[in-house]
């Protein structure tokens, strides 16, 4: 009985190597994104964006056909190393694309660094990916957690706010975002008096909202995403604080969540590298194509997926489809100007986008641009030695 299992086991493992043996001429892209769990919708948007660009190029990047291998990362960091290795060793992917969850992305970066596989991160904002973990073969098409936070810190100080309270989940992404905010806000004369934290993924905010009411700051900065963002915005409004103390945050607070938040989100200002109505011809074309292809409106995650594909395209073109030329691939991207729907951006030395961070305000069911909070903002890439 056990023997048959071992047999089956060997057979599956063997079969999978055979089935996935590299077809000549194709570049294999491993999409390691969440298909189940809290971030499943984000994974779908990223994949759609990525595929949209590849389809626009006729299924080819750098002259080579693109073949996808998908893997559900479950947003579980404890499985991340195995999953990344699976794509690299079993499926022999040339490029790894992923993911949403920071902890998973960090593990992927570690594997990419060890194996030298190209990695493009289409969302996860962990500062370390383009900080201490930075490498020649690791790129990011999204943002670092520090960026929107820093931009909002500047914007808030400019508005004349002096005293701020921050609130987030007790986890790395939140802390990094808060650090960015604090850095800029205090540099420009403000003071963060309280740094409130909720155990992750607890969504009972009432106690801390009472704290906020007690300390009466000029502004509240927050980093929440997904279900937590919806609940926080609603609780903030229903506790009456919204009327007296403005709530600002990193853009994820109101991205992909506006339907659920309804009127409670109206007027909230956030900072992010994308907005719903940029109105540029580039963005309009992208939104139209996306809506046509997938029967839904694109969001920032779709843009990041789209740009990840663009970055891959630029790199592959520079090396004529030869993924083994890592140095040339990287050099081409470091020089490139990426024609993103969000507005063109370049890559920093640590391979994180140098991009405009928009100040947006919720109006109706949209994040409308109010202005640019920080022009061509580059992540400081602390700890990156390359």
């Amino acid at each position: 009985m056990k023997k048959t299992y071992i047999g089956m086991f060997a057979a599956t493992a063997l079969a999978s190597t055979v089935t996935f043996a590299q077809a000549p001429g194709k570049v294999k892209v491993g999409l390691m994104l969440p298909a189940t769990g809290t971030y499943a919708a984000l994974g779908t948007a990223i994949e759609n964006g990525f595929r949209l660009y590849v389809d626009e190029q006729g299924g080819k990047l750098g002259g080579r056909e693109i073949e996808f291998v998908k893997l559900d990362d479950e947003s579980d960091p404890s499985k991340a190393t195995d999953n990344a290795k699976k794509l690299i060793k079993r499926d022999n992917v040339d490029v790894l694309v992923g993911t949403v969850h920071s902890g998973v992305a960090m593990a992927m970066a570690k594997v990419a660094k060890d194996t030298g596989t190209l990695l493009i991160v289409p969302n996860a904002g962990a500062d370390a990916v383009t900080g201490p973990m930075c490498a020649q073969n690791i790129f990011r098409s999204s943002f670092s957690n520090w960026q929107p936070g820093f931009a909002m810190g500047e914007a808030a100080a400019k508005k004349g706010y002096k005293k701020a309270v921050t609130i987030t989940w007790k986890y790395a992404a939140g802390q990094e975002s808060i650090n960015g905010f604090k850095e800029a806000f205090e540099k420009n004369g403000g003071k963060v008096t309280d740094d409130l934290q909720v155990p992750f993924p607890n969504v009972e905010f009432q106690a801390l909202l009472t704290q906020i009411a007690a300390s009466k700051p000029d502004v509240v900065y927050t980093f929440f995403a997904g279900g937590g963002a919806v609940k926080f915005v609603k609780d903030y409004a229903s506790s009456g604080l919204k009327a007296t103390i403005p709530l600002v945050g990193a853009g994820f607070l109101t991205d992909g969540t506006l339907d659920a938040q309804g009127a409670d989100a109206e007027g909230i200002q956030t900072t992010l590298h994308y907005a719903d109505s940029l109105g540029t011809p580039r963005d309009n074309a992208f939104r139209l194509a996306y809506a046509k292809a997938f029967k839904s409106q694109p969001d920032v995650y779709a843009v990041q997926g789209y740009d990840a594909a663009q970055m891959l395209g630029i790199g592959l073109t520079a090396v004529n489809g030869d993924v083994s030329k890592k140095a040339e691939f990287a050099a081409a991207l470091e020089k490139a100007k990426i024609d993103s729907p969000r507005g063109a951006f370049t890559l920093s030395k640590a391979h994180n986008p140098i991009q405009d961070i928009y100040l947006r305000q919720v109006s109706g069911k949209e994040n409308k641009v109010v202005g640019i909070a920080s022009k061509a903002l580059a992540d400081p890439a602390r700890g990156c030695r390359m």
Partner: protein
Amino acid sequence: MTNNDTSKSVFVAAIFAALAIYPFTGSEFGTDLVTTTMVFAIFALSLELLVGGTGLVCFGQAAFFGIGAYSAVLLSPQYDPGSVAILLPAAVLTAALYALFVGALSLRTKGVYFIMVTLAFAQMAYFVVHDTSLGGGTDGIYMTVKPTLGAIDLGDTQALYWVTYVLLIAVFVFLAVLSRSRFGRALAGIRVNEQRMRATGFSTYPYKLAAFTISGAIAGLGGFLFAVKDGAVNPELMSWHLSGSVLVMIILGGIGHLRGALIGAFAFVLLEELFKSEAIFGEFSKHWHLGLGMTIIASVALLPRGLVGLPGQWGQHLLGRATRRAEDMEVQNAKA
């Protein structure tokens, strides 16, 4: 040795023989995957000692696994390879110490309460690494250089496979010997009827505590290997999901048999791979949880004694009801 015992020994020997041949036939990825599975098998064996051997259902086993893993990474020097001779005992020892602490307190409770207290202590460990900077917080920490043992570099896939293989056999043999020892019989006695043991003036608490600590130590060993394999650790290693998964493994394999833990670990990993496979399920592989969930439900309905009991069930079909009744009696007796 009865006929039945012989067939069991042959069966287990066949597993280990197959595992010894595997690296020569499989791909590098396959070797990796089997290494992972063997690590889980060690982890599952540690729990089997408690659940099957002593009748203590621990729902926080991941804490010891995680502590072993974290110790291995935290104690590794940053730029040089650490020594397995130091790191391994250290990881096992810290896990055992935490198990001793948890066991000392939680063994005062029984049944469902025991399940929940062990969960609570695991959650504590989880929040300590999750909420403090001790272990890098949510994103975890890395082992930059893999440890070595003399000339053996555990950074090498093959080397790690063989070290894991040897340790798995060692754990298996250790537990097999243990279960036949006086100590093991005492544990079995506690499982069957603790009241009676106590009534005869036998102090059960030290025995249970010893079993709990040994179990934690073995889980820590699994954790050490996991950390070395991945070169990274994060709080999810201590989450209740992993404690749940490892419980599922041993139940799936068959409680009360060491080989059940072995089979369960392999079956669980294999099932996941199967339902995730795009080659078989296409687009629907996105919903692989559905297939896994239904299989688990079906296995409860159809395989009450786990995969280990499967040959027995087939046998019953052939031999008719008389045997079934006898076997059921046997099971009842074992359970009672």
